[in-house]
């Protein structure tokens, strides 16, 4: 550790400060692990804890498996083959990410339930006698389906960016060694993309563990439901923090496994011989099958729910006030843009630090910042409010000096909300940036420094431009995630501050899913636009 750390200076200081700031609020939760258990905890253990754990595990394992399968297969198709509409699918396959899972869950239930389009069509058009329970998706498999079709893009984007920048010779040499496409896939592509697969899958896992909207509506009791039940229902914040802390423990285990799997191996491309993969032209039924596969995933994750939302929008148009929607939209874009920018900047600094330091402990340090992603939003919210109120008390003399007679300034400002977003979503930006750093390795940095450039110049002139892809994809992911975030926005917003997602939630939580469709569509529209703009830009740059 000593060896490199000595060279790191300002980067170390900044990175440590960021890590501390992001981790501190979570500390309140870690301490919860060590409080003695009370009778509520015993009650939970006796009656429900086991089923919480079981359901959470099933959800996590099944969703991770399904998203890896879909995400990786799509990434490979796009990176290696030429088929009709490939260029369109390349960016369109990220679109499902623009739909908040809870909206997706409501929408799919709307499609499948008794008054939904499927059952009514079959009943009224075809006069079929139906067993409604066959169409029930409000159960564990249903939730897995929802999470999979809306979260697979995490695996897809990260892996796709990685694969598209892999050296062609690696793949070509495998094929020349007589391996067919399938064996190439399993024996070379899967192992080399392991880091990005794990990075993407852990985002999916954390997102699933954290989610409350889908499981609550579908009536599935998970760890997160347990946290809320003890906190709100029993009014026992200690036990709920204990549960949150256990959840965090679980996440730490996942992170450690990731680290171990990643091991000491480095798959960085450190040479100039990186030629983009030449695409293999698919013809005939293979081309149709490839395009069909992409299209059906896209339909499930995007077109079908969008069509339903559009239908609802038409049905309810004019019944809800729309005059404020411009300001909701602006609010959404502002907070998402600011948070995403901040997260990417911080992630670049912390990522650079992680790359430069040596020693196991120091390497693990940045991982701590990822924990925020595992904690249910509402719990983070409480931690952040507590921290900000303390900060305001500390700054109170200053406020008085400025002639203000209120004690809470920061705590009621938008900064509170943005800080919470940063804590919550840092993992997403960081994951993308980390993969980027992993890929470029340290050789270019060494070369740059031997040419007389210091760390900062190296960072600006070498690392940043080489990581453009990672930076942009990280930005988009965070931007979209903030856009659709719900519990934090709801609790921590300043007065009179509405965003599209709070508006969508307002209706959905009151079981007015049709009325929620307008705001949902706008969320999707903005996210989709962000994806398109950035991809067009990226494509131009790459040429």
């Amino acid at each position, binding site marked *: 550790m000593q060896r490199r750390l000595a060279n790191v200076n300002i980067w170390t200081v900044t990175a440590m400060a960021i890590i501390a700031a992001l981790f501190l609020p979570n500390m309140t939760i870690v301490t919860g692990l060590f409080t003695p258990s009370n009778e509520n905890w015993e009650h939970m253990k006796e009656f429900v804890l086991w089923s919480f754990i079981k359901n959470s595990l099933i959800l996590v394992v099944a969703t991770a498996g399904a998203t890896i399968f879909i995400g990786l297969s799509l990434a490979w198709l796009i990176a290696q083959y030429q088929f009709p509409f490939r260029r369109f699918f390349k960016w369109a396959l990220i679109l499902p990410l623009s739909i908040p899972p809870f909206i997706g869950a409501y929408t799919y239930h709307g499609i499948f339930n008794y008054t939904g389009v499927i059952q009514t069509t079959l009943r009224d058009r075809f006069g079929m006698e139906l067993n409604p329970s066959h169409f029930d998706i409000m159960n564990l498999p249903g939730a897995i389906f929802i999470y999979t079709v809306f979260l697979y893009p995490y695996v897809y984007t990260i892996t796709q960016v990685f694969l598209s920048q892999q050296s062609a010779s690696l793949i070509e040499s495998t094929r020349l060694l007589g391996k067919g496409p399938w064996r190439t896939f399993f024996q070379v592509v899967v192992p080399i993309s392991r880091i990005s697969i794990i990075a993407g899958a852990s985002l999916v896992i954390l997102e699933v563990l954290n989610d409350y909207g889908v499981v609550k509506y579908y009536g599935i009791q998970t760890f997160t439901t347990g946290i809320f039940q003890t906190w709100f229902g029993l009014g026992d914040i200690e036990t709920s923090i204990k549960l949150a802390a256990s959840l965090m423990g679980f996440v730490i285990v996942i992170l450690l496994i990731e680290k171990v799997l990643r091991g000491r191996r480095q798959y960085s491309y450190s040479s100039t011989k990186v030629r983009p993969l030449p695409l293999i032209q698919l013809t005939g039924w293979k081309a149709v099958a490839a395009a069909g596969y992409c299209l059906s995933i896209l339909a499930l994750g995007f077109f079908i729910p969008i069509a339903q939302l559009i239908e609802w929008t038409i049905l309810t148009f004019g019944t809800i*006030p729309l005059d404020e929607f411009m300001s909701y939209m602006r609010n959404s874009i502002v907070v998402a843009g600011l948070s995403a920018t901040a997260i990417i900047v911080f992630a670049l600094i912390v990522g650079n630090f992680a790359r430069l330091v040596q020693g196991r402990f120091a390497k693990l340090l940045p991982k701590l910042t990822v924990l925020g992603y595992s904690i249910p939003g509402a719990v983070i919210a409480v931690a952040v409010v507590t921290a900000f109120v303390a900060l305001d008390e500390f700054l109170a003399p200053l406020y008085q000096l400025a002639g203000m007679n209120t004690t809470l300034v920061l705590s009621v400002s938008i900064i509170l909300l943005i800080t919470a977003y940063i804590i919550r979503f840092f993992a997403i930006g960081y994951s993308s940036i980390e993969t980027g750093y992993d890929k470029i390795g340290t050789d270019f940095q060494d070369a740059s420094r031997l040419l007389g450039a210091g760390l900062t110049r190296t960072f600006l002139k070498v690392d940043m431009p080489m990581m453009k892809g990672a930076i942009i994809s990280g930005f988009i992911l965070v931007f979209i995630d903030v856009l659709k975030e719900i519990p934090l926005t709801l609790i921590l917003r300043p007065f009179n501050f509405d965003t599209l997602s709070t508006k969508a939630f307002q209706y959905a939580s009151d079981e007015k899913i049709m009325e929620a469709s307008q705001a949902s569509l706008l969320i999707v529209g903005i996210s989709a636009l962000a994806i398109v703009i950035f991809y067009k830009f990226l494509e131009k740059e790459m040429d």
Partner: protein
Amino acid sequence: MNKLIYLVLAFLLLVLTACGSNDTSAPATEGASEEAEESTEVNLYTARHYDVDDELYKKFEEETGIKVNLIKGEADELLERIKREGDGTEADLFLTADAGRLFRAKDDGLLQAVSSDLLNEQIPENFRDTDQMWYGLTKRARVLVYNKETVTPEELSTYEALTEDEWNGRVLIRGSENVYNQSLLASFIELNGEEEAKEWAAGLVNNFARDPEGGDRDQAKAIAAGIGDVAIMNSYYFGQMLNSEDPAEVEVAESLGLFFPNQETDGTHVNVSGAGVVKSSQNKENAIKLLEFLSAPEAQGTFAEANYEYPVNEEVEPSELLKSWGEFKEQDISLSALGENNAKSILIFNEVGWK
């Protein structure tokens, strides 16, 4: 590379200008500090998300010149926020859709006692907190709906009767994480004691048509789908379904009947939306004015018409639809009991395996 920088700069600029022009909805901070004495605003933390509420606040602003600043959220999170913000909190009024939460706010020492003749006149005694810490604004009944083809109203009587064998596999109700169910069970604990309440919960679980899923409306749809025959749901959801924009939903609602249970015994379970003035409120007078406005006949009528809720103000008639369901006998318990017994009800739900 340069292009990237320009893009980022352009974006930041956009964001900044957007921020700058954001002051139309500027929060209370500056206003409160400069014009504390005049106090032309009131800060509301509300767990009610209805559009009709916004219309009422606008009307209040027009009539009184007092600006209503809003944070909408979930009741428990808002409570926690007020708690954490401590004495410095900007909140003046806390509004929520469950008496249990109002009790908890009071219990946690977050509310203060306020009174006015107008409030006492407009809101009947049993919908006011005994210590005047909070006031009920609207009522909602937790009723039974049934399949008109398979069930006759004569077969229905009480919540308790649904635990009998004849209803095996026919009863629908949502999950236990829902506060309306928690308050329902809490009322039984108050009326019949913990033992009997637990027996009821266990008996009902035994008769479930399926594991609880979805919201109140989904229970009604499940009846139409033939999964069960009778469901427990809130009255206003049924009203909303009857007036839905989706013809299929209207069709479902029309195939169902509504029944007020326990009319011969202790009455149908009723919960309230209500509000209380926050302890460290800096705009207490305005908060009281808003409470008075919301319980006045005009606002009460709006609640009833637009949201199918029962008004608490006895001068105001329920909407035509609500009247068509007839009058009914309400549970006669202190609403605070819903809050007092809330934790117990959750423990019982867990023990009997009500998901």
